[in-house]
């Protein structure tokens, strides 16, 4: 296999928590803890987990909207974390981000045309005429009519705004696109349009996606590989089918079971897990999931379980009991019966 386009190694990001009258550091939020993964060119990695698990911070750290405390981010043979600001600016062309909220991520005082052209202007790519041609082409690609070019963001629907965000992100012909919850502000009937668009653009432009979402259904649809995060760490990762069909971490199982099944005949097939996500300021010792895990034993509290190879190639799991409990985590595959 050729070298991955993105190789993230042992990234660690902590935020100090200050408090009291003197603003002394009271502790640290363990946002991203020792995260490593690779992403092959042209593929989509779905990064899933619940709020506060560190998935957005990880995305932002990779493109250096946040600075990591330690670790490495190798992009196409070069460590992004070691680049100077100026070098980073040059590389930004190849790494773009699509944001969750199409309402607040577009400048309300710029027209559609200006919004999409801005990155080309900043990076001084082509002359004005060439840039305008490019904008027209991009708008067509994302299914927007070029005559809308002089309109402002508030004149568009959520789905259209997300298309504009995508056109802007693609203007520089990036190689890696980090999409942070791109569907969650959209209406259900519009999500499908945007998902279809992202898939066809990926094929056409050979894009690599890091797709961050809490929505398992969407992630299962668009991803090739999956990484599940809990309290700052990847607890399970692997090819999509392995993770969804044979989840080996109890948290992954719980997450899959918690996603509502779209078939009333299958309701009540599983029970909710207990408790809530603990604070990332003082994560529980050992496996951070142990207070909620139905399979936890004393040994789980002792050491942080490493992400280790499991069953199929590429499938890795951070649970010391993964082999013993494999049988209990199995459940018949859910077949959706909606028309």
């Amino acid at each position, binding site marked *: 296999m050729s070298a991955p386009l993105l190789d993230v190694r042992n990234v660690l990001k902590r935020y100090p928590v200050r408090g009291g009258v003197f603003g002394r550091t009271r502790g640290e939020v363990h946002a991203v803890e020792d995260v490593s993964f690779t992403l092959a060119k042209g593929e*989509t990695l779905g990064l899933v987990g*619940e*709020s506060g698990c560190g998935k957005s911070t990880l995305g932002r750290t990779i493109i250096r909207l946040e600075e990591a405390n330690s670790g490495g981010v190798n992009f196409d043979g070069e460590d992004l974390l070691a680049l100077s600001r100026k070098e980073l600016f040059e590389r930004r062309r190849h790494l773009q981000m699509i944001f969750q909220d199409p309402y607040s991520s577009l400048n309300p005082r710029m027209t559609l045309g200006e919004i999409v052209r801005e990155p080309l202007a900043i990076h001084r790519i082509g002359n004005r005429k060439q840039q305008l041609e490019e904008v027209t082409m991009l708008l067509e690609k994302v299914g927007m009519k070029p005559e809308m070019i002089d309109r402002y963001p508030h004149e568009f*629907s*959520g*789905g*259209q705004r997300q298309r504009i965000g995508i056109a802007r992100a693609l203007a520089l012909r990036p190689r890696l696109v980090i999409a942070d919850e791109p569907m969650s502000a959209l*209406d*259900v*009937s*519009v*999500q*499908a*349009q945007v*998902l*279809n668009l992202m*898939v*066809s653009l990926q094929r056409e432009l050979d894009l690599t996606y890091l797709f961050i979402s*809490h929505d*398992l*259904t*969407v992630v*299962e*649809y*668009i991803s090739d590989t999956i990484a599940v995060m809990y309290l700052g760490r990847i607890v399970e990762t692997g090819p*999509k089918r392995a993770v*969804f069909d044979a989840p080996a971490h109890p948290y992954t199982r*719980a*997450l899959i*079971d*918690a*996603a*509502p*099944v*779209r*078939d*009333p*005949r*299958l*309701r*009540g097939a599983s*029970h*909710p*897990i207990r408790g*809530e*996500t603990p604070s990332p300021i003082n994560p529980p010792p050992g496996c951070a999931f142990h207070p909620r895990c139905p399979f936890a034993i004393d040994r789980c509290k002792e050491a942080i379980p490493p992400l280790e190879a499991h069953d199929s190639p590429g499938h890795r799991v951070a649970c010391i009991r993964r082999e013993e409990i494999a049988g209990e985590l199995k459940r018949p*595959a*859910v*077949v*959706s*019966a*909606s*028309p």
Partner: protein
Amino acid sequence: MALLSIRGLKVHFQTELGVNQAVDGVSLDVEPGRTLGIVGESGCGKSVTALSVMRLVPCPPGRIVSGEILWNDRDVLKLPEKELPEFRGREVAMIFQDPMTSLNPVFTIERLMCEVIVRRFGVGKVEARKRALAALTTVGIPDPETRLGSYPHELSGGMKQRILIAMALLCEPKLLIADEPTTALDVTIQKQILHLMKDLQQKNKMALLLITHDIGVIAETCDDVAVMYAGRVVECASVHALFSHNRHPYTRGLFNSVPKRGLSKETPLPSIEGSVPSLLNPPKGCRFAPRCFRRQDRCTVDDPQLLPVADKHTVACHFPLEDPA
């Protein structure tokens, strides 16, 4: 007989840009002890419908144009102001989408809960505290003694929603309206809360009106479902009928546009083209017509009425789909 029956409800809002026909002829029934789900996309009028039942629509800018909301043979819309507090606690209670904003942040949970209890039941402080503790235990709050002393901001979203459920159920209402009760929560917590609501519903023999945009939540919790689009109910059926043979083109499109388990990007998702219309100037005739693949001339002229296509299954469409193969 239905516990709650909404007939031809029209609620409009006066805005700077014109009249927003937010709810425009909604009819639906909630049966005693059962769960009716209202599903639809943002802005289709789900919350305004629910707020109308509670008589909580702000008027102005809102205006109840016509219709009736029958509860025990009385029209809720005509209840005198002084009967409302009684109606809102004992008959129908409501919980809202955002648990963060529904609890007054300056009071402790004890103060918030005891106030309601003292007002409603006329009991003393000691008794009120005892009842509050019992209510917190019922909704699965760990260490309720300590929690009584907490302020809302010290609690997680899931805890707050549990507390709101506890407060809503204090007076044992016959109907609980839950407007997107789990939308702001993580999935593992959503599952806990839905479980809790169903459990309490059975214990209290209460009806539930559950509003959501998530058809998965509908499948997991509801007995009957009303699908809303642009201020109207377009289809109404039992949950099983709706998932196995829905007949309205919008319902079908909505259900298909959510990826099914096991599907992947090699198969494009069927999607509904276009977007939801503005209710300031909604399309003539069928409001779904501009996006509908079955549209014919008649659709843009005549309003389709909600008519039966099978037992307990109604559809508002001139050309309903046949049962799927």
